[in-house]
């Protein structure tokens, strides 16, 4: 019972930080969907089906936080690559500060 509750809690917070995590990965540099999923898996584990990244990325594009373009890598097929816009970077910066503050406060509460 406790294990299930813990798993559920972990799953919930991993999902809730997904948008920030996607922005953070894109903040390191442009990426395509699969590359993003791999980077996110390293940080969050396989928290959600990877297809759910696409509505999120579509929303970022719509809101002007990211732009997408098809790029041709040195090898392999053309890929749709996402990059943060200046607005996306500003949102990431602000959200990171909020996250740090919240994490600090929660840390105090938990200690």
């Amino acid at each position, binding site marked *: 019972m406790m294990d299930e509750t813990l798993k559920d809690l972990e799953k919930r917070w991993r999902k809730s930080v997904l948008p920030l995590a996607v922005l953070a990965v894109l903040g390191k540099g442009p990426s395509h969907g699969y590359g993003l999923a791999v980077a996110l898996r390293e940080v969050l584990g396989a928290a959600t089906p990877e*297809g759910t990244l*696409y509505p999120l990325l579509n929303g970022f594009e719509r809101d002007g936080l990211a732009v997408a373009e098809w790029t041709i890598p040195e090898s392999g097929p053309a890929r749709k690559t996402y990059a943060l816009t200046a607005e996306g970077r500003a949102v990431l910066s602000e959200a990171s500060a909020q996250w740090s503050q919240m994490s600090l406060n929660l840390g105090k509460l938990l200690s």
Partner: protein
Amino acid sequence: MTTWTDLADPAARAAFAAYFARVERHLAPLPDASAREVREELELHALDLLAEEGRADAALARLGAPEDFLPDLVAERLRLRASKSFAPSHVFSAIASSARTGLAGIIVSTLAGFGYALAALAVVMGIARLVAAETTGLFRLQDGRLFLGLGENLGGSDVLGVWFAPLAFAVAACLYLILTLAFGRVKFRKPPGEDKANMTG
């Protein structure tokens, strides 16, 4: 390999074919170029997952059920298209598609539909006024109450006179423009991963 149709394993090819048939069904309301873009992106992702997992069913499970993530994406693209083109057919597609994205989508689509119905009613009243001025318009009745008439004459004085039809058309146009712009920008995506199936990890 750039497409799943090149897969050597017949079972993997069949699994991909079944999966992407479902993808196609969901992408059908989108314009061809937009649908192709989404499909190609998902195909490449699925092939990368296949290379990683080695099994088609595991790879496609990692990507998730199209039913869980495509309706939101499609509805959002259709709403944005409608808010840019203002074409009634695009508005209709956007409403129909959004209504299939869950409770919030149904509520927003219903409200939008009600608003568009009001706009249509204003157009009808404007036309009716041009055809039958004596029964359509804003009338002040003998007891002082205002009466918005459509095909019914209760007597009284005509308040707006010849301005009724242009005003009705203006109200309809404003309502249509405002609703379409608002509908194109409304956000009611569910949080990522809040799906009914395929939770992994």
